[in-house]
């Protein structure tokens, strides 16, 4: 009897123990936090797809490659070349003293690949999704492909050979190899052409804050310039110019306004809550000098004096701060340091298409038509027109000067122009520390340490 009881007891104990342990699974089940959504679910619904893409634009706007103000490509490369002079001369861009371990170099690399991961993940998620129609997906795929190409086009001009990452697999991406510069350009071309199939000329919103097909065409034209395929560059630049959505703003004061007809793509500024006022653009906050402090950036004497008399751009796009009988000129393209009601940060404007076209033409020996494009810009600045020039190199020099006056402090134009036309060595005239080493950025040291496949380091670093 007792043994029987004991057996029952033991059985009960064993049963309940197993029961208890099995239910432990349930015991430690938890809910998803409110601010996270399963990846699969993100691509089921158009609203969350838009949100995922919105974050990519948000990051692009803050990314050093596209940021309008301080610590962005426009500002850093104006210092790196000969457009800006900082009050505090102890600036590694100004001194052309980059090294592989400094933060800004790492930032250019790291944030680009961070954003590229998000773009690749977005493309993977969207392509996999069976809940959205191909038609709905189209424009988003097009924008993502365009953005990927755009990032790489900047990256490769900075670093030269780079890995062209198109997947999200960390195992392969952590051991990735670099692709030759020409290969990278071809990959970019491929992505851009593909994006043209998905994009339309129609903007998603009225204020042109998302890129459309015309923007992709312009970037493709620039890609062809880099590849020296000038006829194709001409073709695509011409397409942009021919597009009736865009006109050169004849009033020079309207060029950097939100409603400008010359704008192809601009970054949206955030609205200040409960008002119609936007936060100031980064350009306005960075460049406008109201008092001389260490962080003030002035227009270099060389650039300041390169303007011809009566150049409207000098009158309207350069401001002057004076102290102790000395004049400190500054970049004044964006005016609203406060109370911003009408300025966004413009990434691409029609003038770039004219310069791209002009460059493509001159390298094909079509000098007259090339001059035509430049003159169009000159006339808007109320300058006399240029006559015939036969020598291509001479024409290139003039084009570079005109480009400098038009695009100073914008998105590193000066650096990329000089580089594309093999004229960077000119900088050594005004920049004592300039050397061939400065043509490329160093790869961040930490990246080389983590992935030796990225070796060798760029020349000189």
């Amino acid at each position: 009897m007792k043994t029987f009881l004991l057996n029952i007891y033991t059985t009960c104990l064993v049963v309940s123990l197993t029961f208890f342990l099995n239910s432990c699974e349930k015991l430690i089940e938890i809910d998803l936090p409110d601010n996270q959504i399963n990846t699969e679910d993100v691509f089921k619904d158009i609203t969350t797809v838009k949100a995922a893409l919105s974050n990519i634009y948000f990051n692009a706007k803050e990314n050093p490659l596209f940021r309008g103000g301080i610590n962005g490509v426009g500002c850093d490369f104006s210092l790196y070349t000969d457009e800006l002079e900082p009050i505090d001369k102890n600036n590694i861009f100004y001194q052309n003293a980059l090294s592989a371990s400094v933060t800004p170099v790492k930032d250019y690399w790291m944030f680009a690949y961070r954003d590229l991961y998000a773009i690749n993940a977005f493309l993977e998620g969207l392509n996999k999704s069976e809940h959205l129609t191909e038609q709905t997906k189209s424009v988003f795929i097009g924008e993502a492909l365009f953005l990927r190409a755009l990032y790489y086009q900047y990256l490769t001009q900075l670093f030269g050979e780079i890995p062209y990452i198109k997947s999200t697999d960390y195992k392969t991406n952590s051991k990735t190899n670099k692709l030759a510069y020409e290969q990278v350009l071809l990959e970019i071309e491929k992505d851009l052409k593909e994006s043209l199939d998905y994009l339309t000329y129609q903007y998603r919103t009225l204020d042109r804050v998302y890129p459309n097909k015309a923007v992709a065409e312009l970037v493709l034209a620039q890609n062809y310039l880099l590849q020296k395929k000038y006829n194709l560059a001409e073709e695509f630049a011409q397409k942009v110019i021919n597009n009736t959505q865009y006109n050169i703003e004849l009033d020079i004061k309207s060029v950097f306004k939100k409603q400008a007809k010359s704008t192809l793509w601009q970054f949206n500024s955030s609205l200040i809550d409960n008002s119609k006022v936007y936060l100031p653009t980064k350009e306005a906050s960075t460049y406008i000098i109201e008092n001389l402090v260490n962080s003030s950036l002035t227009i270099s004497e060389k650039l300041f004096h390169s303007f011809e008399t009566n150049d409207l751009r000098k009158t309207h796009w350069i401001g002057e701060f004076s102290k102790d009988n000395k004049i400190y000129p500054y970049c004044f393209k964006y005016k609203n340091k406060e109370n911003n009601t009408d300025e966004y940060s413009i990434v691409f404007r029609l003038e770039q298409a004219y310069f791209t076209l002009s460059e493509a033409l001159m390298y094909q020996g079509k000098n007259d038509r090339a001059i035509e494009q430049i003159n169009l810009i000159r006339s808007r600045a109320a300058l006399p027109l240029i006559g015939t020039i036969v020598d291509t190199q001479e024409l290139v020099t003039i084009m570079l000067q005109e480009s400098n006056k038009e695009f100073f402090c914008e998105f590193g134009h000066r650096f990329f122009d000089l580089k594309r036309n093999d004229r960077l060595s000119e900088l050594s005239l005004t920049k004592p520390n300039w050397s061939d080493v400065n043509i490329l950025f160093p790869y961040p040291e930490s990246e080389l340490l983590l992935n030796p496949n990225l070796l060798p380091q760029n020349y000189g670093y």
Partner: protein
Amino acid sequence: MKTQILTTCGYRIAMLVSLLIGYPTYAVSNDNHLFFNASYFLQDKQQKGIIKLSGTVKDAQGVLGGVIVSVGNKTVATDLDGKYSIDVTVGDRITFSMLGYKERSIVYSSSMGAVLNIELLEDTTTLDEIVVNAGYYTVKDRERTGSIARVTAKDIEFQPVVNPLQALQGRMAGVSITQYSGTPGGGFEIQIRGKNSLSFDGNEPLYIIDGVPIVSQYLNGFLSAGILNTKISPLNSINPNDIESIEILKDADATAIYGSRGANGVILITTKKASKSTTQLVISSSTSFSKAVNQMSLLNTEEFNKLREEAFINDGITDYPVNAYDMNGTWDKNRYTDWQKELIGNTAVGHETLIGLSGGSQTTSFRLNTSLTNNSTIFPTDKGYKRNAVSFNINHLGLDSKLRANIGVNYALQKNNLPAVDFTKTALNLAPNAPALYKEDGSLNWQDGTFANPLAQLDKTYNNQTKSLSLNANFDYNLTSEVSLKVNLGLTSSEFDENVLSPHTIFNPGLGFTSERSRSEKGFVNSQSYIIEPQLNWQKKWNKHSLIMLIGSTFENQQNNSFKITGSNFSSNALIKNIEAAKVKTIDNLTNSQYKYAAVFTRINYNFDSKYIVNLTGRRDGSSRFGYNNKFGNFGAFGVAWVFSEENYLRHLPWLNLAKIRSSYGITGSDNIGDYQYLDTYTVNKGKYDEITGLYPSRLLNADFGWEKTTKFELALDLTFLHNKINASLQYYNNKSSNQLVGYSLPWTTGFASITSNFPATVVNNGWEFTLNTNNIDSKDWNWQTNFNISFPKNKLKRFKDLEDSTYKNKYVLGKSINIVKLYHLEGVNPQSGLYEFTDYNQDGHLTADDKQITKEIGITFHGGLQNTITYKNLSLDFLFHFVKQQNYNYDALYKYIGDLQTNLPIQMLDRWSKDNIHAKYTYASSGTDSSLMNLYNRYIESDRTISDASFIRLKNVSVSYNFNLPNKGIDSVKIYIQGQNLWTHTNYYGLDPEFVLLGFSPPLKTYAFGAQITF
């Protein structure tokens, strides 16, 4: 839904427990069951001449409850009045024993009658009866198999510290504690037996206060980085004076019962409990004065000016630039200010008041303690840290003394009002001839916008407030004399909110900012947790055998909510505290998270004749932090001890009291990786584009990471000689961590810096620890005790799968410590050019990362403490030296240009290169326009010169106290004391202070405190 799970779960636990309880009860109540009733066969059932003996047990102060009275196999305990009664026969040996008292044995003879009153003498030295808290169980120190270090109230109370961890520095072997910052209310880096984990947070031990684990990782706020180095210790919420003892569990035997959370050691904190039935009122108060422990010798104005002039000459600049304010006449270049005195030279004042009341009846007693603590800082502000804490504790003995209940509540309200940034860096960097802080009219001086006045930063304030409540209840019910049921329940709730206010006045007025630039940030972190731990104990003694078994389970649930909002652009600074008034508002973070944890654990302890002891512990854990295939893990340990002094051949040596060899081996783990890491999700971002809120990919996905495991081995020898006058312990440990959970470093080409993953490496931490406690003098009036401890930790990367092919190829070296840093080797300054020269190891003509071939280890070679306590009658002197032999970063790691206006320098840097000083230690001065120097500076701060000896010996604590006994004045006693902290330091360290975690934060403080305690 959740409550339902809990209810069913609770129900199941109850069922299981009741079965477990029922089983042995059933067995015991049946005479013939063979195992559990072995004692029945062995028991002498003689029934003749039984006498019911009763009496009272007292000590010098009064009656003693809880004294164990034993006769043969029978034991009873005295009640709260000290009364007992037990059956005896003539010739029986009656033993009276109690922790902290000398045991007394009496052979009963018929002449004694039926009443036997006994007085026990206090015994402060008996090791035998020191009972150590091991968490789920307690163990006699003499019989323990594990490695447990212990510090009691005696060493902690009255110390002028905010956080109890601070009071432990230098007192325990194998435990290294470093303060993140000297600012009160901050945190500590604590390493128990070295660094197991590579991740920053991965070395945190498990903290358990009165049985309730506390949530440590959530107290890291959003905004405290600038002033408190981010980490805020969760132990700030306990007043050190409320602590009875702190036990640190180190080896596998002690920690395996905590399974997956024991890998980094366990810190058990036991608060003071109600014990006395007489009413006692204790009031104490103290005041302390503190200063930064050290100052650096920096350049004076003359030296600084000389360097500046030299810098411009070297750069070939004669036309001084607009921002060379000292040279171009904007500033008075001959001013001198000792900025260390101005900015970090304030005397921090602290006050503490404690009021405690305890009392009770025979069965119920209570203890209430309240404390008010205030501490200011060394910065030029009178604000600081405040803590109001209440702890309440009730003890109840009921149901024929079978039920013991202990219920405790701790509540603390902490407020910290600080400047948002630490001024230490500024104090070291600011030029000695920088302008005055104030204008003559008392307003801040910006020197026409040329001087970034550091005091403007005082307007930027950091405030936090923590409300922490912890409730714990322990019920212990003796079902039979052998079986007891324990339930431990805990509930914690903490509300942490903080804000940083940055009015536009912190900016140079030259920038023309208005309150539109003012910002206000606010963060909240709320966390709640509860824990339920039923536990069943069974113990049996027969002849020389003793067997203890324990089985229990844990269920824990933690919930966190956090929220951060930023407001900017205010119409007036008067509104800055109210974020609603901001024109731009951003929600930076709005998160909730959940963590659940369930486990069953067991312990089996067998003891033969107090000579051979075997201890087995085991635990099966489930944690919500792992993916579906890896939620559960098993942990366990095996410990043995051989008390060879109990062997017959040693037993009668009068000078040897205890000789014990113990050893243990086992596996513990860690799940310290944060929640939800295995999920593939997108997270909501604060940023909007085109007014659409963003979603970003949360992380690189690795759903398959599993438990981290650390195997620990220990071998130790414990000896006690000469009537317990000398206690020595020598311990060797060898811990191997493998499969560590880390953020595995990845190149950015993967889109992320790391992925949560198991680290394919084995890291070995081994070392020796030695402790020696001696009772040098023990006479009626004089008493002198010495405690010494020293530890030699060693760290080694033993194995790394495919190291050459991994992203860690350039970081680690097999066979070396994981704390190594690879650096450039600085050969010196070239006597001709004055430039730094580094070794070009790969001889490619360039200095690249490949040339970082010199390895230096950052870490401790040995550390320890020497404490002496001398008492003469009622006067007591106690002092503790703390010593550390280590290497760490020195001031050169913060080094900037020689000759820059922004940077003052240590006097060592006067040894710079010039034509007259070609064999210099440092390069030549430059105003920052020499680009060849720029690159070399960057390499210099990554060279082997930046790491050097940071060893020190420090008089950590001194205390002198005097106790007046005034029993007839209505006051029991008055104790007055003086305490000193960090009064003296010996070091060759080059920098502000060798005791730091990250450079640039406020150093430890030198403190003098005075106080008195009155007991009624």
